[in-house]
């Protein structure tokens, strides 16, 4: 599926998409949280870009680890430790690989989910980023089982995340800032889930267009 320079390209593309949607993410967070998610993500991913630009990476693990640390260190909100942990857990699945297969990608999503659950003491259905990430992983996993090709699997992941995101509108927030407004969060999309959908969408688009 991808050599290191393509992974870098995909992450850079994701960072650009986050940047372009900064305002939108902040508005989502303004409705049910503290209105900083766009700023947090934009700042975090600008440091990911910087890391990718300035660093040299021997392995995919190294690349994900350094990107994760950039998120952990510079986001400033819950999404920092959460996306950071996701990247660090992803890194651990990759070891000394210098190329990533579609199976690796699906595995990495799975590890990310576990990392977020651990860090956030959270689970599916609590109106968090997990509610985009879990359906994304499941759709991808299913597509692999069905023998779909890389672009198709990436597309399935993207669509899974978008479907999950849409579904978060129906959920009551149980974790994070949005849990303060409880029932009042119904009808709004979760900002962290929106970020997941943007990132996974950007990755799918990058490889589809490549």
């Amino acid at each position, binding site marked *: 599926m991808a050599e290191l320079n393509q992974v870098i390209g995909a992450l850079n593309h994701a960072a650009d998409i986050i940047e372009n949607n900064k305002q939108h993410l902040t508005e989502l967070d303004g409705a049910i949280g*503290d209105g*900083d998610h766009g*700023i*947090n993500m934009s*700042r975090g991913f600008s440091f990911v870009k910087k890391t990718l630009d300035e660093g040299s990476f021997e392995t995919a693990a190294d690349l994900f680890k350094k990107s994760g640390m950039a998120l*952990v*260190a*510079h986001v*400033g*909100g*819950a999404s*920092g*430790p*959460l996306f*950071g*942990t996701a990247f660090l857990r992803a890194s651990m699945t990759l070891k000394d690989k210098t190329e990533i297969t579609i199976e690796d990608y699906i595995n990495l999503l799975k590890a990310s989910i576990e990392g977020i659950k651990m*860090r*956030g*003491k959270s689970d599916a259905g609590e109106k968090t980023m997990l509610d985009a990430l879990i359906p994304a992983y499941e759709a991808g996993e299913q597509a692999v089982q069905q023998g779909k090709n890389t672009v198709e699997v990436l597309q399935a992941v993207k669509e899974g995340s978008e479907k999950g995101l849409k579904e978060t509108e129906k959920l009551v927030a149980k*974790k*994070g*800032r949005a849990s303060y407004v409880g029932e009042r969060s119904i009808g709004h999309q979760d900002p962290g889930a929106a970020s997941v959908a943007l990132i996974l969408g950007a990755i799918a688009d990058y490889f589809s267009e490549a």
Partner: protein
Amino acid sequence: MVGIVLVSHSRKIVEGIRELAAQMAKDAPVALAGGTEDDRLGTDMNKISNAVHDVYSEDGVLVFFDMGSAYMNAQMALDFLEEDGSKVEIVDAAFVEGAITAIVDSGLNKSMDEIKADIASMKLGKMP
């Protein structure tokens, strides 16, 4: 003396707590991690690591936090600590009330366990 680290989304809140407690315990080692790297409302893992580092000793460190992401960033900081992590504990306690009690206690040379006993009744179930 037990080190006390105060983690808050707001720099003002932790500065205020330190000021208040300092009236009663001038010598207690207290370090602040308030606000983000770029001084917005939020928390910062590196500020927390540095704060722990500043007040670390064999006597241990207690980390108080205000809410949500402060806890997650404190955990991350502990995961990446240079110091002996077994001596550093994040506590579930009412932020202002717990921190002031702990700072005064530390100034009285109470141990980690004694301080934890004194704030045991201030648990709020903040660590899910």
